[in-house]
């Protein structure tokens, strides 16, 4: 019976490495070559060298799995060297457990937990094969406990697999079925990829074996196993079972086909070590040679049971009885183990159920927590996205604002620079403007102060006239500057009263006339008959008109200057116009000339403030001063337009 367990467990261990394909372990190719060599030599001479070569190669290729396999090999080798069914010494047990612990710690480090549990498996086999069933169960329990403690589904799965193997080997099919069901449940519920990689085909095959030979459940479970077979070894296992079943059902052709398939495959030894003997026994029964049948229940009770059933089905009742008897004896001998295992089963089962419930609760909790976390993450992400979007929009807006401000600032700066340049020009210009009349005043005064006889009386009169003229000019200049300064300070008032057009115009002309250049005439030519009065500040009106006339005088060297007044040119306004026959103002300068300190011609006397002052005063009175750009008859035409209905309040600041 122990041998049976060994075989089962060995087959189980082999299942881990499944398949005859190249390098099924998915390790480095060179490592795999060394691994194969060392595998061949397990328990034989030369293993040490082969396994050291594997280790060197594994280190060279930095392959942790191959390194783990080295330790697996070392444990396997030591166990294989001790003959089965012998009592082992304490030293041997200690060495086995030492190597087991090394393998487990390595597997834990490298993360290949299948080898961690494989270490248990090997040691458990070792005890079982060396007649220490209690220790075997202890190892299984230990492993189960550890799996439960670590909440490791793979460990649980493996534990269940051992229990299944144990119970089947003891013909305790009821418990075996329970453990199979539990193992299936773990497999189906598991998210663990290591568990999912395992084959359930094998479980269904085991399940088939737990039913009485000939019942429908056997074929049903074999069919299930066929459906769930994943790898070559699964297929082989299914064929192996089908061969037995076919023999029992008397389907000789099918039996022979399956048998041949199984016998041709060298891996059949991984399914069952005694498969070849079993097939020989079946052949002998089928060919009517019962005396050649070898009875050896220890090899594999399942096979013995099967062969007995086949013998019975073929009418060889004596043989069948003999075989079943040997099986019963075998079972009785293992009764103590069975009892022990039942106890341990109850323990393990309790732990298992607790773990199941725990796992389930945990997974529900986990799902709830996951949902909550996902919800929170989604919420947070949404919040983050919203904040980011808003932030980006804000940034973009503030960037736009900044850009706009930069443009504004640039413009402002440009204006300031221009104003500054204009002011500098103005100061230089003013220096010149002031010095020119001053030069005449000072110069001619000096000439006048020379001793008598230097100049004639006529000459002296002329000098005096120059002095007076230039003094007036200087005064006007100062007035302009002071006016501007006054306006800047806001000390500037408009006093409204009735102003009569003709009176204001003629007064302005009489003030400006003396500035006319030789050969130029000046006249007033209103567009309407008779007097016209309106509410305004007559002194300011005269001031503006004088300014416009003075400008005209400066720029007109021939022709005439005409001052006019119209009520129709701008409806609702009184329009005074000054038209000259001078060089005119270029269209592009039409507005610039109203800027402070801007002069069309630097060499024409003046502050460059006149038009700016005019415009300021006019706007204070609700009117405007502008260059008539539609006037194209040579010369310039400036217009002062003032509202006929001025504001009622007397004073406007």
């Amino acid at each position, binding site marked *: 019976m122990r041998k049976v367990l060994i075989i089962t467990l060995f087959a189980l261990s082999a299942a881990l490495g499944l398949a005859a394909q190249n390098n099924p372990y998915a390790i480095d190719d060179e490592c795999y070559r060394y691994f194969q060599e060392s595998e061949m030599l397990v328990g034989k001479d030369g293993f040490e060298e082969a396994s050291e070569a594997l280790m060197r190669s594994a280190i060279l290729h930095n392959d942790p799995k191959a390194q783990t396999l080295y330790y697996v090999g070392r444990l396997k080798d030591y166990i294989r060297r001790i003959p089965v069914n012998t009592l082992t010494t304490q030293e041997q047990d200690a060495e086995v457990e030492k190597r087991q612990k090394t393998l487990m710690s390595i597997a834990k480090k490298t993360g290949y937990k299948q080898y961690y549990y494989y270490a248990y498996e090997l040691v458990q086999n070792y005890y079982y094969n060396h007649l220490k069933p209690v220790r075997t169960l202890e190892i299984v329990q230990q492993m189960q406990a550890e799996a439960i403690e670590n909440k490791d589904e793979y460990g649980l799965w493996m534990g269940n697999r051992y229990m299944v193997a144990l119970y089947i080997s003891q013909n305790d099919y009821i418990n075996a079925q329970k453990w199979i069901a539990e193992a299936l449940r773990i497999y189906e519920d598991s998210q663990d990829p290591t568990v999912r990689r395992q084959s359930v085909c094998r479980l269904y095959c085991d399940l088939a074996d737990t039913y009485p030979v000939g019942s429908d459940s056997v074929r049903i479970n074999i069919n299930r196993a066929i459906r769930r077979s994943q790898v070559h070894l699964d297929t082989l296992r299914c064929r192996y079972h089908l061969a037995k079943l076919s023999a029992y059902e008397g389907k000789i052709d099918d039996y022979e086909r399956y048998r041949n398939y199984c016998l041709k495959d060298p891996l059949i030894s991984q399914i069952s070590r005694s498969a070849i003997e079993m097939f020989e026994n079946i052949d002998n029964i089928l060919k009517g040679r019962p005396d050649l049948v070898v009875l050896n229940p220890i090899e594999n009770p399942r096979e013995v049971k099967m062969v007995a059933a086949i013998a019975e089905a073929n009418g060889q009742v004596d043989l069948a009885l003999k075989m079943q008897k040997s099986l019963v004896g075998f079972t009785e001998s293992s009764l103590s183990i069975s009892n022990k295992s039942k106890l341990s089963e109850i323990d393990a089962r309790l732990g298992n159920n607790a773990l199941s419930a725990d796992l389930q609760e945990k997974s529900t909790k986990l799902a709830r927590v996951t949902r909550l976390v996902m919800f929170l993450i989604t919420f947070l992400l949404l919040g983050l996205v919203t904040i980011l979007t808003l932030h980006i929009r804000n940034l973009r807006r503030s960037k736009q604002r900044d850009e706009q401000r930069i443009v504004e600032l640039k413009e402002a700066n440009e204006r300031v620079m221009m104003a500054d340049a204009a002011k500098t020009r103005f100061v230089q210009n003013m220096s010149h403007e002031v010095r020119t009349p*001053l*030069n005449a005043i*000072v*110069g001619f005064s*000096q*000439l006048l102060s020379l001793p008598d006889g230097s100049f004639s009386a006529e*000459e002296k009169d002329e000098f005096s006239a120059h002095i007076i003229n230039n003094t007036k000019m200087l005064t006007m200049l100062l007035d302009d500057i002071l006016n501007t300064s006054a306006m800047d300070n806001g000390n500037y008032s408009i006093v409204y009263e009735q102003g009569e057009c003709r009176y204001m115009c003629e007064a302005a002309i009489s003030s400006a006339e003396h500035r006319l250049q030789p050969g130029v005439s000046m006249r007033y030519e209103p567009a309407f008959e008779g007097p016209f009065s309106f509410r305004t500040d007559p002194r300011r009106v005269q001031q503006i008109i004088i300014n416009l006339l003075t400008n005209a005088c400066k720029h007109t060297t021939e022709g005439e200057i005409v001052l006019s007044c119209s009520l129709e040119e701008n409806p609702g306004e009184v329009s005074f116009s000054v038209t000259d026959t001078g060089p005119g103002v270029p269209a592009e300068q039409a507005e610039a000339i109203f800027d402070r300190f801007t002069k069309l011609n630097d060499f024409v006397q003046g502050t460059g403030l006149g038009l700016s002052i005019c415009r300021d005063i006019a706007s204070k009175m609700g009117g405007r001063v502008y260059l008539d750009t539609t006037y194209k008859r040579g010369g310039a035409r400036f217009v002062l337009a003032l509202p006929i209905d001025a504001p009622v309040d007397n004073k406007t600041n």
Partner: protein
Amino acid sequence: MIPIYAQEHDYSKYNVLAVDDIPLNLLLVQKMLTRFKFRIRTAGGGQQALDAVAAEKPDLILLDLMMPGIDGFEVIRRLRADPATAHIRIVILSALNSNEDIVKGFNVGADDFIMKPIIMEKLLTCVVTQMQLVKK
């Protein structure tokens, strides 16, 4: 008022060119220099000044700086660049009064600088000094 050494000197053979865009300034200079009996010619701008120099080389030029077109600085530059006119004495009479303008005037080749408003003694002294330097 007039330096003693200049009083009895005959200046009639000296030729002076006054340049200014403002007629009144030219009149003033003419009147101030009356008693020296120079031959005084006038020019109303930079170009006219160059033309007048080309027509007849003066001994002294009284030159305004701020004039439309060719300004006083440019007139000096051109006269100094031409060997035939490089030796002509040039006195600037200008309302420009900043240090930069004065330095610039000397740099381009002016011999003296008189600021407007013109102080008569200063002008006469300056003119007499320049005339002393002209070998006749």
